[in-house]
């Protein structure tokens, strides 16, 4: 994360960290493994009170940022989430609240998200091969109604969501709609996943009919909104993954000093020292590109899309390699449930596979490069 925080950001980050330390220590994370929701209502409401879900929403809609960039503030929270493998639908709550506010859609739904009393599902991803960020769910117009057909998965906290923000395809354009969870034709199948406290569902939309008023933005014209949401979401995933890396790395450096083999600490073996040097470099590079991309997205810079995809590709690849090398350094204990290291490995692994693998993002970066070169002539 940022090397230098403003004093407000610093306070905000510390407050969040202290809250997570107290509310979701590893014992609680382990307990939540068997909880169907994965987080406590009260925990989430109190986190929202700290501001976790208000950061991307303009004050006019009830939001409040810590600095002049709510997205940077959010990335600080996400970083702490990664460091704590913290529970709760941080990404979807923020992205959806931001979208509803920016598009002036269903403003009645925003307050619940900001207060942490309602949960919404960001129904964006689909089954491979459409997980490559190209939605295949169909949204067509029939008379006065919109008709949805398709499956969205994985959708975070789908079973708890009171409504979904659904992205689909109308002809060659993208469309977004708000779908109440109890709409006829909507069904949720629980999914399994690698994280202990995250919960996902596959949400099926079978001839789901909605009034045209359910639209978010214009029919077939949501591409820019979708791209913005994707970039915000990637900022959150990246920062969270860097947090997980940082914790895994710190634990493993400690271990290398504590653990002796053949009468010497692991940290004295040059083959391992060089791997720590490699990990330190991955870690600093991940911090650097995560922050840089967050700044670019926050300021709507022309290279925001390129940088945030570069960050996702780089961190997806090297972040998890770092965490797996931490496992390797721990030896047998590192692959047991008893040890805490996997809590962070799980978060990193989850984020690597969500919203596009590294290859998907490399292709996105290449497209940005090609566009720039074409524009240059």
């Amino acid at each position, binding site marked *: 994360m940022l090397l230098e925080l403003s004093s407000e950001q610093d306070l905000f980050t510390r407050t969040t960290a202290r809250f997570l330390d107290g509310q979701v220590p590893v014992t609680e994370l382990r307990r939540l493994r068997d909880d169907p929701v994965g987080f406590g209502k009260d925990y989430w409401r109190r986190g929202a009170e700290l501001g976790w879900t208000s950061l991307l929403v303009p004050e006019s809609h009830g939001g409040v940022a810590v600095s002049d960039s709510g997205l940077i503030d959010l990335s600080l929270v996400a970083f702490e989430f990664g460091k704590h493998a913290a529970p709760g639908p941080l990404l979807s709550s923020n992205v959806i609240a931001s979208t509803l506010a920016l598009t002036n859609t269903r403003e009645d739904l925003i307050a619940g998200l900001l207060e942490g009393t309602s949960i919404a599902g960001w129904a964006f991803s689909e089954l491979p091969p459409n997980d490559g960020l190209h939605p295949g769910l169909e949204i067509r117009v029939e008379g006065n109604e919109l008709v949805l057909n398709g499956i969205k998965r994985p959708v975070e906290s789908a079973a708890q969501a009171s409504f979904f923000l659904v992205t689909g395809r109308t002809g060659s354009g993208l469309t977004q709609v708000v779908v109440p969870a109890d709409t006829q034709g909507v069904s949720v199948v629980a999914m399994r996943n690698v994280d202990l406290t995250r919960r996902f569902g596959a949400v099926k939309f079978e001839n789901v009919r909605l009034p045209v008023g359910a639209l978010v933005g214009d029919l077939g014209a949501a591409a820019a909104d979708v791209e913005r949401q994707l970039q915000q979401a990637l900022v959150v995933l990246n920062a969270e993954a860097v947090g997980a890396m940082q914790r895994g790395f710190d634990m493993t450096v400690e271990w290398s000093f504590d653990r002796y083999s053949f*009468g010497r600490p692991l940290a004295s073996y040059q083959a391992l020292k060089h791997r720590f040097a490699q990990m330190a470099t991955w870690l600093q590079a991940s911090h650097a590109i995560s922050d840089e991309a967050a700044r670019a997205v926050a300021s709507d810079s022309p290279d925001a899309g390129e940088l945030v995809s570069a960050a996702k590709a780089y961190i997806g690849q090297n972040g998890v390699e770092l965490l797996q090398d931490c496992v390797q350094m721990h030896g047998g204990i590192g692959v*047991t449930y008893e040890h805490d290291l996997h809590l962070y490995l799980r978060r990193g692994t989850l984020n690597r596979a969500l919203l596009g693998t590294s290859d998907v993002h490399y292709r996105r970066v290449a497209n940005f490069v090609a566009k720039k070169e074409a524009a240059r002539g």
Partner: protein
Amino acid sequence: MAEVESLESFRERARAFIRANLKPSVNKVAASMARSERADEEELEEVAHERKLQRMFFDAGLAGVAIPKEYGGQGLTPKHQRILNAELRGYEWPSRAQVPTFTPCLAVLLEFGTEEQKLKHVPAILKGEELWMQFLSEPSCGSDVAGAITTAVKDGDDWILNGSKVWTTGAWWSDWGLCLARTNWDKNKHSGLTVFIFPIKSPGIEVQRIEMLNGSKEFCQEYLTDLRIPDSYRVGGVDMGWTVGSRWMFYERMSRNSPLVTYPEGNTRPGTGGAAMLKIAEAAGRAEDPRAQELIGEAQTMHVVGEALKRRVGQGIMTRTLSDQSSAIARLYAGWNEVRRTTIAFDLAGSAGAAWTDDDGALAEWGNYFLIRQAGCIGGGTTEMAANVIAERVLNMPREITLDKDVPFRDVPRSRSQASK
């Protein structure tokens, strides 16, 4: 001297037994990939079935092929064993009765055990009555097995053992343990060890299952608390445990290549190689994607190169054109292969790698496999140890400096807190 059965006659006999009695092998998902739901009862049923299979091999004169007759074996040669392995291709066999029971445990008994120990245990093993486990690794010493701190103290004619052992596969359904313990803390690391055997279901031994990242509970940890055993359970001399131990390590590395072990030729783990990756790519709708094809091809390449390497190393060691220690090369490669293959599968599965449903078929569960992918670089000796062996014993590069060679073991630092005292 009795005439040795001809290879041809043996082959006929083995083939007849196999075809009459054994079922084709079922491609089970390999142990390290076991899903969390695998029920204990299922595991226990399989153990019982394999004990029965071992007994059938024994009754047919096919157990302990290369083990002397006086201990219940067939007194034949490694060549006979290889014929049995070749004939077994594609058939079921008593898999859990082989490693570590036949090697390293039985191998160590044959080399270092007393006549009484051999007469008692070898026939019982051959009949499937005794399954053995290694009580070797400890929580505190990882790769450095000679750094064992489980301690045995002489008490009259008995020994009292205290300590903890870990990474024993299936200790909860096994019968006997082969254990390395420290009997003298005033000698240096390698000079104060002694080897013992004992029944696992003894008072004083508590077996705990270890849950792994993918939910499997195949491994155990044991706590020895004032475990009392007679001196007749000692293998090799007092404080001579590393003489036994270094051969033990050798027998352990031989694993399924040991002439004592029955292992069907051509048996490779399912889910390896390009075919499994192709299924994932198909399920992900990416079979025509050139990049997916490259990943499938890479996985298959890793697989066929690995098989070729195993054959080369095996042949090279047999014919002494490669040093014994070259098996570390195959081990290092196998670790990379496991990591790379699992990573390819995980990435091919795309978002299904993160989250999946029970109906996802070939796309399901890769997230769990990915979490535990390093197991292939840790279990059975880490890849780091293999790299040390290759550098120091195959390439003869200078050994790492160790600080625990020439001091009483009690003075060797074993943790930061201890070192800073």
